[in-house]
């Protein structure tokens, strides 16, 4: 699967391995969660009320369109969270019972 974003500037920082919906992916230290996901995917999840998937919009924490989920169900705002080694990111949330 190809990503939406294209890395232009060479990044020499450490490679980071993480997962998106359980599938392994890589990024670099210094990438935000949003960048890391969009380098690997065309989008970061569905929207509730439009026919299109979403990929964030403003990259500055205003539009609230880049929220993704971690393994505990916590939200992470993609544009303002750095990707970290071993991060398990999900594009949708399922409430756990109990």
């Amino acid at each position, binding site marked *: 699967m190809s990503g*939406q974003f*294209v890395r232009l*500037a060479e*990044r020499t920082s450490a490679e980071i391995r993480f997962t998106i919906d359980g599938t392994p992916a890589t990024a670099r230290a210094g990438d*935000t969660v949003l960048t890391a996901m969009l380098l690997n995917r065309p989008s970061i999840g569905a929207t509730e009320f439009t026919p299109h998937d979403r990929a*964030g919009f403003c990259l500055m924490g205003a539009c*609230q*369109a880049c929220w993704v989920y971690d393994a505990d169900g916590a939200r992470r705002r993609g544009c303002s969270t750095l990707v970290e080694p071993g991060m398990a990111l999900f594009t949708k949330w399922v409430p756990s019972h109990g």
Partner: protein
Amino acid sequence: MAEAIAIIGAGPAGVRAAQTLARAGHRPVLIDENMRIGGQIYRQPPPGAERAPDQLYGFEAAKAVAIHRALDGLDIDYRPETLVWNAREKLLDLTGPRGSERLAFDRLILATGATDRSIPFPGWTLPGVFSLGGSQIALKAQGCAIGRRVVFAGTGPLLPLVAYQYAKAGATVAAVLDTSSFATKLKAAPGLLALPKLFAKGLYYLAQLKRRGIPVIEGVDGFAAEGATAPEAITWHRGGETGRIECDAVGAGFGLRSETQLADLLGCAFAFDELTRQWLPTKDAEGRASERHLYLAGDGSGIAGADAAELAGERVAWTLLGDIGQSVDSGRVATLDRGLARIARFRRAIEAAYPFPHRFHAAIPDALIICRCEGVTAGHLKFQVEQREAGEMNRLKAYSRLGMGRCQGRLCASAGAELLSHWRDAEIGTVGRLRGQAPVKPVPVA
């Protein structure tokens, strides 16, 4: 007893305010959502993504570095990655790495900055369409282009700048679509000469784009993104002329809009600004808000750019110092005020050169989604006006859900007001405004 001073926003305005206050012996609390100081234009990449300043900031490198270093050696209570989600009287509600806390203050400087202003266009909800500011952040802070073949569209001085930065960085810029015509810019040119360096930079970016063979199409009357699940092309029209440009990403923006939710929650008076067609908190000539212990600086209370933000941040710090009985460098204040006045003249010319094409809203088709968070179409809004007699923004919100989503109207309130005023044939300043509600950005239940 020392006054407890808080500053919200660590962009150029907040930083200069903090610097001035710290030099005068105070220890202000500086609260910012980002990881590092600098705001938007001088945004610093996160650790691991740093690059040389001239690569990141071009002509503005020296200014950016000065801002980044402005607080070195000063004793500031700096709270990064911290959101002020509510404000009331003399209390702020914070959430961040320290968890939740309430912060009391005696005086507060609001330097909350701005975000892109959007006009919905067909296809704007496709993944791969970003704001102009967002496109710039992808490049500057993350070293990425938003796509393989990018079209930039909209208007404002940021448009040629971001396009140029992308081209210089090696991205493929397929075209730049500017809704402002050459003739419009020419007419505004004498006013732009109030700040010749800035004017020259604008010309430089355009020349660079042309040199690289990037089509710059001015005076477009409308554009649309095509594609089923991602952008595949942009179509545009200008008079009877049309064009279609293949792309896989679009960066679109129509100037900036001020972030005013906290000023609203704090009870500041607002007035409608005809020039920018936005409601803004009112301030006096020294930067005081209508609530006397509050001060406003930077784009958060009216778009004037980073240079003005620096001046205003320092200026309101002097105002505050004078208000609490400390000595004020009146010569310095006079210099700051002269600088601000000069920039204000230039800003009027900028608005004239890159007018906000509010007439676009009249052409918005019913099927176009206006509120992205809630999926509210123009047709659904029109129904509220025609069938439910909505004539005011809060009514429109209550009926349609426009502005009820996660972004609380940041992306849609402008278009909602323009559409409402168009359908009701009412002046836009008379249809009301959405009110700030806590939390100003989403916070977890637990």
